[in-house]
């Protein structure tokens, strides 16, 4: 199973608007390690628009603007659930 790629912008705008808290929380969550790959990234062509859209996170193909930990976790669960249930027939995580 290919892990879900989660990229968190750690440019200064995004860090200050909560990006640092998001990436630290994701990295500290041991439950995610088996199916999520977390990466720090630089600003995507100023997608954060001078901070008004910060912080920027991508989950798989989806771009999340003004990301919060709640929204990012929800999106990870949404993308992960079919993968986990489908890949090994193991019990799915609590949604």
């Amino acid at each position: 199973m290919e892990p879900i790629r989660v990229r968190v912008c750690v440019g200064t705008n995004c860090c200050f608007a909560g990006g640092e808290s998001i990436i630290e929380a994701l990295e500290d969550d041991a439950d995610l390690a088996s199916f999520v790959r977390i990466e720090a990234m630089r600003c995507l062509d100023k997608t954060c628009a001078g901070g008004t859209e910060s912080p920027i996170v991508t989950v798989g193909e989806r771009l999340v603007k003004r990301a919060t930990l709640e929204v990012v976790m929800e999106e990870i669960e949404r993308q992960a659930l079919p993968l986990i249930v489908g890949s090994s027939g193991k019990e799915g995580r609590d949604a």
Partner: protein
Amino acid sequence: MPEVFERMRGLYTPCTDIRRKIFIGITRFVLSGKKPEDIDYLPFSIIDMGKPTYRCCSYKELSIVRQRVRLAFGLPLIEERNNTPVSAGIGQAFTRSKVLAAPIVNVITAACEKCPEDKVIVTNMCQTCMAHPCSIVCPVNAISFPEGGQAFIDQKKCVKCMKCVKACPYQSITRMVRPCAAACGVDAIHSDADGYASIDQDKCVNCGLCTVSCPFAAISDKTELVQVLHQLMGPEESRPYALLAPSFVGQFGRLASPGAIAAGLRAVGFRGTREVALGADCDTILLAKRIAERKAAAAVGAAVAEAGAAPAGVGSGAGLPASAAPKAFLGTSCCPSWVMTARRHFPAFAGNIAESFTPMVETARLIKEKDPDARVVFIGPCIAKKAEALEPELRPFVDHVLTFEELAAIFVAKDIDLAAIDPSEFPAEASSLGRGYAVAGGVAGAIAETAEQKYGAPPLAVAKADTLRNCRTMLSEIKAGKSSPDLVEGMACPGGCVGGPGTLMGLAAAKNEVGKFAALSAARLPECECGGEE
């Protein structure tokens, strides 16, 4: 259960959000050159009127943001009852001179939810059980079951012994302590007559942990953001130097290397950057020398006493020189909140705490000795440094103090991206041990290692504590003779400076970054230009 200030740490909460938005808003306001009286309009650009975001209604939000703006300008709170505008007297804050005055830490009454101070309460989990061990174990008969219903605790009788909390099979009884008061290690927070939190400024040591522990963001410190911005906007030759506290590494994101931070400081107008670990090196040498000399004197004294006392028998203990007495420890001086707490609560130990300047002042001194007209801004995790820099004898050295969070707001407002900037050279000036001052244990560790390696001291007994409550326990034990250390380190913040209220990064990651940066130093042991002269 972790300490109250650890429970929200590292989370980006609406309290973090409103604080940072105000810092950014004010920075943009000042940089855009708007007139002071226009500040009355600023809160409306932060609050969405008619659409409550943080609290019950936007008018309340507005009223609180006004107070936060005042504090961010370094000015006193406005009287809430007589409709004073935010702009009242605000012109005086548009300066590069110091306007900051005590008190540094303030309660915004409009934001305070009047949490009960300290109360044992029965929650809805109570099943009105047949056994009701709660009322059986209660030593003061404070628990009753009105109308045969859930348990009820008579607050007038309750002595908070916690016996009922432990006895309840449903864990339905809990103790609720006001978070600000729980965070305060010097018991400086009480309720006023109306139930609002109130800080006893004679007890407060400005550690600032209450400001990050209040879940309603009702306690805030003043800032010097506006005055520093005026310095940065001034002519090149009068722009300030940035002094970076040892805990700075990694605070601005994992892609912002020390060199990138230095380049960013340059880009927002600072003349140059020095690391405060340099001043830490001066302090290490000073204290290591002193403690090595003391130990040597004590050894001589003990040898003399032993030679004299040996025929008379063992165990009398008489004839030991004063310097070998159990209470003759040397206390570190780099954390101002710890120093104030130790001196106030243990006056008998006041003389044990080193009188030396803090690393902040030592580093500022290094700059001002070479360039007396230089201006210096200390940037750190610390709120107590804001108060320290107000002391008349230190004012000539440190012009202003910012937190990492306040500096980050300047980077954001000026659209400086430290992850993309061309990094400048960050000179390896300070020792590994000096850079380690940021983490609890690092100060005493540096002094002990230097005393032993450089000045031939025997292995030293070290006692250390972080958080003021633990510091007080440590000193009580020394006072009671339970331990007799040579060297005592106290830190007000959990984990040391990396756990300070003005930090941006989680504790574990911050410690790790400080360690990695310390390993890059050219030397492990400190060298100091002044050679430890006082």
